[in-house]
């Protein structure tokens, strides 16, 4: 498929306004301002655009739910706190095509009746923030942002808000808390952000890639959009492939593309002539797929049917030298560190899981520890305010389910049974 979101990103200066204008830049906004806000929401609904941040919630509905009756300001918050392990698509979009996001923010603001959009960018992306701020300044200067845009009477400001290192800030209510200058911890829902979000005002929180899908819907039309990809999974999608592949990167495709094609055609296959052992198809928080399961379309619905999720479309590929206990331990180190601490099951359970995995990986575990992992996971999943708890339990549940023999081998042999080359050089316990 012809790339839509990242058509020119390999050209030098792709991040400039001049370059963007040669690729239908700001035509979507111009057209949108001749339509009514309701017509834009209807178009986005009809396009079937689903949130690209992980949950796949229909964007048109999200915008429709934003309370238009209450006499308060309304806000768009763009979630650019891209922190899901294995995900780096928003990074690329903002770094190489920032004007597409700015245009998406402006159309979103017009649709929900807002005049301000905040782009919440993770603190580590300072170099990306500089590019984004430069692009915003260009857009103001050329009249694509600011007061009375194109003489339509519509005002729109876009501000970048810097985070300071918190995975949890990617959860929409935690993002709002962080924007308000607090700790990034999730709120109890309801009320949902659509009625009481930022500063207690109606708010829509959208992922970067989601907002970047809006200008093409307006420019090229709903019919074109729904014709790209399978039914209910329409539109261009960015896939991030990383890990043990020859050419890791961000690839744009429609959602007919299979996981196998992404690994073997797009990302050049498994590196060093090795064999595929497992792939996590949607960031670290979803169940793994085995080599026998990868002939599945990488779409929201097809992957859900296959027992996993598309999530953020961050595919982490692992070859046959990878120890799955070590994988689970690595990911639980992440979740233990990033848990915001608000809900006890996640805060304490994540730490327990990590310690048990560490014990097993060092070869000091018992058979009882394997069942203990399942019991602790079961007591986290579904028992927390946000989806973080389920995400933290998933790497353990999925590796124990698919690779229980490997866990048992660690216990029986008292050591890691399949260390990778570089790990084999240092004795167990040191890695």
């Amino acid at each position, binding site marked *: 498929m012809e*790339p839509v979101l990242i058509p020119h*990103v*390999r050209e030098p200066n792709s991040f400039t306004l001049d370059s963007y204008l040669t690729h239908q830049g700001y035509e979507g906004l111009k057209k949108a301002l001749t339509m009514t806000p309701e017509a834009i929401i209807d178009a986005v609904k009809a396009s079937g655009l689903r949130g690209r941040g992980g949950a796949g919630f229909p964007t048109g509905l999200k915008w429709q739910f934003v309370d238009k009756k209450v006499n308060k300001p309304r806000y768009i918050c763009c979630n650019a706190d*891209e*922190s*899901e*392990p*294995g*995900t*780096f698509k*928003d*990074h*690329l979009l903002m*770094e190489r095509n920032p004007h597409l996001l700015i245009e998406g923010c402006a159309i979103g603001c017009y649709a929900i009746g807002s005049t301000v959009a*905040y782009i919440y960018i993770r*603190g*580590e992306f300072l*170099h990306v923030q500089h590019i984004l701020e430069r692009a915003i300044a260009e857009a103001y200067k050329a009249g694509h942002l600011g007061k009375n845009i194109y003489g339509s009477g519509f005002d729109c400001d876009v501000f970048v808000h*810097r*985070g*300071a290192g*918190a*995975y949890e800030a990617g959860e929409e209510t935690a993002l709002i808390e962080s*924007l*308000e*200058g*607090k700790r*990034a911890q999730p709120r109890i829902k309801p009320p949902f952000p659509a009625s009481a979000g930022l*500063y207690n005002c109606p708010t829509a929180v959208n992922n970067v890639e989601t907002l970047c899908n809006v200008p093409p819907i307006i420019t090229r039309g709903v019919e074109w959009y729904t014709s790209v990809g399978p039914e209910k999974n329409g539109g261009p999608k960015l896939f*991030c*492939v*990383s*890990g*043990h592949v020859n*050419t*890791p*990167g*961000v*690839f744009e495709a429609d959602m007919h593309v299979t996981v196998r094609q992404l690994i073997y055609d*797009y990302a050049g296959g498994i590196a060093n002539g090795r064999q595929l052992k497992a792939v996590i198809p949607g960031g*670290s928080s979803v169940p793994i797929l085995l080599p026998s399961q990868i002939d599945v379309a990488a779409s929201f619905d097809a992957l859900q049917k296959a027992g996993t999720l598309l999530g953020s479309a*961050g595919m*982490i590929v692992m070859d046959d030298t*990878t120890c799955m206990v070590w*994988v689970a331990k*690595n*990911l639980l*180190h*992440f979740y233990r560190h*990033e848990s*915001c601490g608000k809900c006890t099951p996640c805060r*304490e359970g994540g*730490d327990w899981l990590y*310690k048990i995995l560490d014990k097993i990986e060092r070869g000091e575990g018992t058979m009882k*520890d394997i069942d203990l992992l399942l019991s*602790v996971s079961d007591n986290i999943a579904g028992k927390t305010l946000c989806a973080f708890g389920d995400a933290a339990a998933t790497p353990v549940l999925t590796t124990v389910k698919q690779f229980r023999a490997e866990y048992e081998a660690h216990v029986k042999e008292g050591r890691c049974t399949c260390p*990778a080359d*570089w790990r084999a050089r*240092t004795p167990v316990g040191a*890695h």
Partner: protein
Amino acid sequence: MSFHPDLPYATAFQESDRKLSPEGEAFSFTPEQRQKFEELASHYPPEQRKSAIIYALFMVQDRIGYLSAAGMRHVAEVIGCTPADVEDVATYYAMFYKQPVGKYVVQVCRTLSCALKGAERVTEEIANHLHIAPGGTDASKTFTLLEVECLGACDRAPVVMVNDGWHECLKPEDAVKLLETIKASGEAGLSGCVHAVEGK
């Protein structure tokens, strides 16, 4: 005592490593910094100045290298909230240092995609070379070594962030060379942020 029958609870790991920030020298923003802060605060509604707190804390950290108690009190004054409010935020986010750090903070991404490409070995090489454990600062106060979670550039693994600059595709065997380059030419020695994009 243990809250879970099979786990040793309240053992070493749970001991809080939280320390109060050192008092530090008397701190206030320079007029330029104050002006910059007011400009950033104007992005939010006037009664929501606290939204700009992360920017204010970064301004303290950029100047003195970490968040001192004096610095945090000044932020509270500038925003119009209590020092406890400021500490509440400062202690939550991973990028704020509550203790002095070295001139260059070497942050090795340790999450799965980087780990699959040998990030643990990168940390090991740096730690051995500097004779410090992750989290430590070398004797000359030049380098602090930290292990951080996913930096969001997994196609260029292993990724290392030095202060705010990025270095991508760092092979374990080149880690020591990178330290030498930084020592000689500062952050200019970093490879920067270059994504590989397949135009398929």
